[in-house]
């Protein structure tokens, strides 16, 4: 039985949710019932008792659990409260979920990123539920004058076996709220879990299918104006002149002006990233359509921007890093040539084991291949937007942001307000994928509201959203493998880089499994801004590496799964080096599971298979794709997937997220790219930027989770990277041609 210290401070228990305390916004659905259908609405209690900042209990036994983290579609709004409910030992049917306010004194890491919400929230969420349960037991023991050890709980009811007494949590809530917070609490045994591991439907499901206001773009306030912002149309340009004479006099327009999002002396953190340090033009008016029309009537001139350098503080360590943005109007064709040139030169050594130079020199066979991938736009379906109301002494902001804690700091610093006078509330978010880590639009909204002295909602058009930058970088990798005369892998070499960062993870597999190993990395400056995109770096390097290993296995005359398992066996039993960033046994475990579940080795007529496996964001994934080519297009019949992410909180949601990661990876590697001509993005909407469509998705996806009792790890990202390798490997089997450059279909509708 695990006993944990309750580590939160007294303040945590006193600070009540700003929203629960009467800040409910009219017409906005903050509450989400866990009831599966709208007919089964819970009766609201007359009175709520705050047990701690994570939960409150009504006198009728209904429990409200706060969901601390930003919800971007990863389902934390359901899964995180499930963990609290488990330890509280309450019936999930009697739970209501509320989006928590931003309060980092109380909640751990209110940030959606790195697939860390569940992993890093796990202990604090369990503790919150267990603490409340303990307080209910103590209150009950006092009321019944029996030892607390004799009070048991089950599904929201307290029992005392010897006296036969029982009481609902609601009856004891008032007394429990007054109990001193225990110094330590006992957590449940994993085998006793009743809610964790069961499939529970999305708590916002009913609100979503009935079109209730949930998202940032749906947010409204009396007197609210709409603002749109015009950034330079190309990377490397800045504003030269504005003629707003027509726009200003158009119907519904209140004001046209310029802003500088971050002052020149503003000290940026990494989530303040933007490619455009200069002035942007803002149009403010009554309605979205009027503002959209007025901005089209602006006559703007642009001029080349000089080289500039931005320095960012790391959000956790504060360490400073600089990025040089050269003065240039860049072209995709030049990018590709420059990256290939870098790939042919020696680069910075990130890891070296043994004597790779000698091994390659003495090899019986050397295989060398190059891989590339383009810039990608995140394209959340809900474009960037934020509500801001800034007055002389405070700033109130509402909207979709993955990093509310850090953007609160940005707004405070930019406006010159104390941090406690800035409040950001989180809405449900129409996708994140890393794009909403970078909250320049939150600061823009605040600056605009301050300037017009009114509540405003800043709205990005799709074109604004797609051409703003903060893209997934463009990458290039060169792989080499050396085989001896017996076709054993004796050396492995990766040299990779990108615009403007390297995707190399030098200590990941196959590091540790090969005697002679070399990892090198390089980077090229670019003024096209980049940001984290679902599984940063892994979203390219996994596919490249797993395609290359497939080719090496083939050259070695081995089955691709067997080949990987032999390497992992070596890494397990006799690892090379000490810093190998994976557990070989769990890695092999998912490969073995997917081999079994997919009936690997059994041929189906006209169905071609590719396999891949990868470890990132603390989780292990192996995938097998079955496809054929129909009318020159890949038809993906099935994807088999094995995942080891430790304990699975909510299987239906975890499976959904796994399916999404797979579809996302297939889509981007087949179809998607941002390209540039003289600094101008060549794609600005979904007519030119290809995203995967319904008929192109796999016809079926089977997801198998490894069952174990390891603390849960991430799921939002790890499913996405390896599928690109499995896809490339299956396409090779189907066409006899290897696919090295993403997107594999590169604007062609048919494989040629």
């Amino acid at each position, binding site marked *: 039985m695990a006993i944990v210290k309750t580590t939160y401070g007294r303040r945590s228990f006193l600070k009540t949710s700003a929203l629960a305390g009467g800040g409910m916004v009219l017409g906005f659905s903050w509450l989400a019932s866990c009831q599966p259908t709208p007919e089964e609405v819970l009766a609201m209690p007359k009175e709520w008792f705050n047990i701690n900042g994570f939960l409150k209990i009504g006198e009728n036994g209904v429990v409200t659990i706060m969901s601390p983290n930003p919800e971007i579609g990863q389902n934390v709004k359901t899964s995180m409260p499930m963990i609290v409910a488990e330890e509280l030992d309450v019936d999930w049917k009697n739970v209501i979920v509320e989006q928590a306010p931003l309060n980092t004194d109380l909640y751990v890491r209110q940030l959606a990123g790195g697939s860390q919400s569940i992993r890093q929230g796990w202990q604090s969420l369990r503790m919150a539920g267990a603490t409340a349960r303990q307080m209910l037991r103590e209150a009950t023991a006092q009321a019944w004058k029996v030892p607390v050890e004799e009070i048991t709980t089950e599904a929201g009811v307290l029992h005392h076996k010897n006296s036969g007494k029982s009481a609902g949590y609601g009856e004891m809530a008032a007394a429990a709220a007054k109990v001193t917070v225990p110094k330590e609490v006992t957590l449940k045994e994993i085998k006793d879990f009743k809610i964790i591991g069961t499939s529970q439907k999305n708590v916002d499901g009913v609100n979503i*299918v009935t*079109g209730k*206001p949930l*998202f940032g773009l749906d947010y409204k306030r009396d007197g609210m104006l709409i603002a749109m912002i015009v950034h330079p149309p190309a990377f490397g340009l800045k504003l030269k002149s504005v003629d707003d004479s027509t726009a200003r006099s158009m119907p519904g327009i209140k004001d046209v002006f310029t802003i500088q999002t971050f002052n020149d002396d503003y000290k940026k953190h990494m989530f303040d990233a933007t490619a455009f340090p200069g002035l942007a033009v803002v149009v403010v008016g009554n309605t979205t359509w009027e503002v959209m029309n007025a901005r089209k009537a602006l006559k703007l001139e642009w001029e080349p921007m000089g080289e500039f350098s931005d320095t960012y503080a790391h959000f956790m360590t504060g360490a400073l890093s600089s990025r040089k943005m050269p003065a240039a109007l860049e072209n995709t064709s030049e990018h590709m040539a420059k990256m290939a040139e870098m790939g042919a030169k020696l680069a910075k050594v990130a890891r070296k084991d043994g004597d790779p130079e000698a091994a390659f020199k003495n090899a019986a066979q050397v295989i060398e291949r190059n891989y590339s991938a383009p810039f990608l736009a995140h394209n959340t379906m809900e474009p960037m937007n934020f509500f801001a109301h800034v007055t002389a002494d405070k700033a109130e902001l509402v909207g979709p942001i993955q990093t509310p804690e850090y953007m609160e700091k940005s707004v405070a610093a930019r406006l010159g307000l104390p941090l406690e006078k800035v409040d950001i509330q989180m809405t449900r978010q129409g996708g*994140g994928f890393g794009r909403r880590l970078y909250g320049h639009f939150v600061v823009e909204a605040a600056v605009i509201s301050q300037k017009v002295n009114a509540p405003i909602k800043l709205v990005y058009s799709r074109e604004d959203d797609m051409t703003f930058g903060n893209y997934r970088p463009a990458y290039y990798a060169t792989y080499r493998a050396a085989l001896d005369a017996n076709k054993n892998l004796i050396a492995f070499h990766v040299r990779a880089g990108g615009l403007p960062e390297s995707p190399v993870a030098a200590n990941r597999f196959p590091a540790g499994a090969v005697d002679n190993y070399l990892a090198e990395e390089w980077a090229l400056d670019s003024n096209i801004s980049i940001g984290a995109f679902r599984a940063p770096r892994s979203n390219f390097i996994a596919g490249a590496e797993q395609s290359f290993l497939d080719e090496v296995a083939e050259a070695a005359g081995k089955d691709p799964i067997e080949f990987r398992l032999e390497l992992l066996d070596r890494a397990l039993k006799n690892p090379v080096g000490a810093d190998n960033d994976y557990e070989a046994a769990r890695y092999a475990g998912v490969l073995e599971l997917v081999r079994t579940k997919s009936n690997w080795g059994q041929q189906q007529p006209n169905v071609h298979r590719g396999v891949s496996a990868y470890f990132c964001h603390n989780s292990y994934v192996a995938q097998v794709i079955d496809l054929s080519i129909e009318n020159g297009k890949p038809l993906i019949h099935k994807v088999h997937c094995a995942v080891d992410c430790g304990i699975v909180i909510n299987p239906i949601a975890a499976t959904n997220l796994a399916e999404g990661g797979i579809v996302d990876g297939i889509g981007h590697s087949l179809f998607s790219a941002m390209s540039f001509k003289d600094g101008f993005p060549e794609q600005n909407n979904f007519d030119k930027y290809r995203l995967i*469509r319904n008929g192109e998705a796999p016809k079926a996806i089977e997801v198998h989770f490894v069952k174990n009792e390891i603390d849960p790890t991430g799921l939002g990202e790890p499913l996405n990277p390896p599928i690109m390798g499995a896809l490339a490997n299956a396409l090779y089997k189907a066409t006899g041609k290897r696919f090295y450059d993403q997107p594999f279909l590169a604007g062609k509708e048919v494989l040629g």
Partner: protein
Amino acid sequence: MAIFNLNINGKKQQVDVDPATPMLWVLRDHLNLVGTKYGCGIAACGACTIHLGGVAMRSCQLPVSQVGNQAITTIEGLSEKGDHPVQKAWLEHDVAQCGYCQAGQIMNAAAFLQNNPNPSDAEIEAAMNGNICRCGTYVRIKAAIKTAAGG
């Protein structure tokens, strides 16, 4: 500006707007019906799908002046209690991830099933190809449509 009398979700509504205003923004900004979503503004993603006279339409490309007397249904009016077979199937399959595109998906699917109550897989795909789901819930969307058709 001009006055338009609209029939939305069985209710008469009056708006005074520029005749070129797309129904998407009339719904969202003027009538507070924000279930219909803005995704692209060029009829390329399907997030803004509504029914015009029972036919699925991209409201971002439908000027208010072209609506006339035709009945408009939005996600808010698809059913009184959120119990349209498509909505129920969406809940049963727990389709949504971020949820932003789903109103458009549901509206498109509901109109499609009205015309084709027993569609094949290929017909479902063809009908739903115009609706982008960036989260990649396509497998569930298809399964939910089959469930709704079966029910």
